[in-house]
């Protein structure tokens, strides 16, 4: 099944291979005798360097789909190739390694460790990748600089504004140099000004570093930042529309 090893992260040498390729991906939850089909036979391909927004009402299955793409959850059936490798049947620990090396997460509620400095929060994925202290410090500092928070490295989350906290979370998502950043309602807890800051940061990361970005959102304004909008309803994709510009434009540095 392994078409090619994961690991050429961020490389644009092989731009033809998609980052995300799902085939008939299905997730069914069993609650007592009831069966709930949260995600129904979704086949979706996201190319390298794309910036995609997933939209849809609550319960439309977009978050469940997102969790499977993020290797936080396994599908009931169907396959999921991440950068060409089937990750739909990996063990929990193997999934943890995939998340650690190839995927960055950004959440609505920031999900930073409280009482832990920005620097330490950003270092967290590196800690589980068994990277040495010096290297951790260097890379966390670089990631914080990339989001414009180098001077806030030793502040704790409660000493930072919402927009700053979300930027720390983005730095944490960036620190392992991922193939893919998954953001779940990243601007849901932010005012409009911080929201546009965060979205332009995503745009910049997508354009300058070629990182593939998938954002789940309710906000049409946020979705408008993306180059492609995929709409969900009742566990299925009902619309898949590219925005004005071509998919790969701006992916090259």
């Amino acid at each position: 099944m392994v078409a090619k090893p994961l690991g050429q992260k961020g490389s644009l040498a092989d731009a033809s291979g998609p980052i995300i390729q799902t085939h008939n991906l299905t997730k069914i939850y069993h609650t007592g005798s009831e069966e709930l089909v949260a995600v129904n036979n979704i086949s979706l391909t996201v190319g390298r360097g794309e910036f995609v927004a997933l939209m849809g009402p609550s319960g439309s299955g977009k978050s469940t789909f997102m969790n499977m793409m993020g290797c936080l959850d396994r599908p009931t059936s169907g396959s999921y190739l991440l950068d060409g490798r089937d990750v739909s049947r990996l063990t929990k620990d193997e999934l943890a390694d995939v998340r650690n090396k190839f995927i960055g997460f950004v959440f609505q509620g920031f999900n930073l460790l409280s009482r832990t400095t920005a620097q330490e929060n950003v270092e967290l994925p590196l800690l589980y990748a068994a990277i040495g202290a010096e290297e951790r410090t260097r890379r966390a500092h670089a990631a914080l600089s990339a989001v414009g928070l180098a001077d806030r490295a030793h502040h704790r989350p409660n000493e930072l504004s919402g927009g700053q906290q979300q930027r720390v979370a983005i730095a944490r998502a960036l620190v392992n140099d991922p193939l893919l950043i998954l953001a779940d309602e990243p601007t849901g807890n932010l005012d409009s000004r911080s929201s546009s800051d965060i979205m332009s940061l995503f745009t910049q990361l997508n354009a300058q570093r070629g990182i593939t970005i998938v954002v789940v959102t309710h906000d049409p304004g946020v979705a408008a930042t993306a180059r492609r909008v995929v709409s969900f309803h009742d566990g299925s994709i009902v619309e898949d529309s590219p925005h004005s510009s071509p998919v790969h434009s701006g992916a090259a540095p």
Partner: protein
Amino acid sequence: MSIGALFRIAWDALARNAGRSLLTMLGIIIGVAAVITALAIGAGVRAAVAAQLQGLGSNLVIVVPGSTTTGGVALGAGARESLKLDDATAIAHLIPGVAGVSPQSGTSAQVVAGNANWATSVSGVSSDWPRVQNWTLAQGRFFTPDEQRDAGKVAVLGSTVAANLFPSGNAIGAVIVAKRVPFTVIGVLKAKGQSGFGRDQDDQVVIPITSLQTRITGNNWLNSIVISATSTDIVDSVVAATTRLLRLRHHLTPNQPDDFSVRNISNVQQAFTQTSQIMSLLLASIATISLIVGGIGIMNIMLVSVTERTREIGIRLAVGAHARHILTQFLIEALTLSCIGGVIGIALGVVASLLASSVGGWNILVAPSAVLLSFCFSALVGIIFGYYPARRAALLDPIDALRHE
């Protein structure tokens, strides 16, 4: 993830709830402190008693009046009068392998010397006594067999008595009066100190047994006869022969029980060892219970901690932590909690032991093995009782954990 980093995370988490952590540790602290104190005092007493028993020598046989079932059973009338001086003399002459025999009796008396006086015990013994009981003289001499035979009015003072009656030190040749009988002081014993049971062995006046019986008490009973065998190997045969001889002398028919009992020091040592083993066992079980209670406290608070920090666990899992990373993190937290508790408990126990020794005047002995054992046991408690909460944390689903409010 390095162990050092894990300990730092554990420390941070515990320090965040310092008050709660301390209360959680209290069970372990009290348990370990109690164990250390009890073991220290127990070991101190044991060492003192063992040293004294050792000093008595393992070749000694002790005959006391009364049956062997003195514990609980009423003594027959006159049971304490069953040993006589003649019994001691017979043992000395008739039983082979006897190196020395010291019959003993005693009374308490107010002893007067000039204008000083002192309440002490007056012991009547034989001239073999220093050899049998391992006493040496600091000054002067002990009485002779002739002085014993003639019920001589001579006395040898224990060092405590000598110090109190003759503070200036010139006791030899002085006259002391006990129960209106004057005795000439011919010697002073070298100090032996307290016995393991807290009695001052130097607080006595020693006179010939014959003098005690004829001049002071007026009876011929003995409190005990101490026999020293020529070697440890023949102690058992001396015990058997003494029993046979005394039964014969006391005209006991085969179905009558002994009206005396014969023990050797190794019996006493065995009995003592057994008692102290039972005591240790009792201590160990109490310690185990208190440490288990402490462990349950740790488990309880770790479960609370896992619930409170579900979201943190979710974040860690999302960014790539394996189940075993989470398991190790919480196990180390529980381990840190119980080990710090153990160390504080050990410190507290040592302080309490020192206090007991300085205030209560008890012998104490804080054995390194007891400290090590307590520490290992508290670490073990942390691992055992930390495992269940840590496993619960490790088995959390990352999505559920992240959604946790």
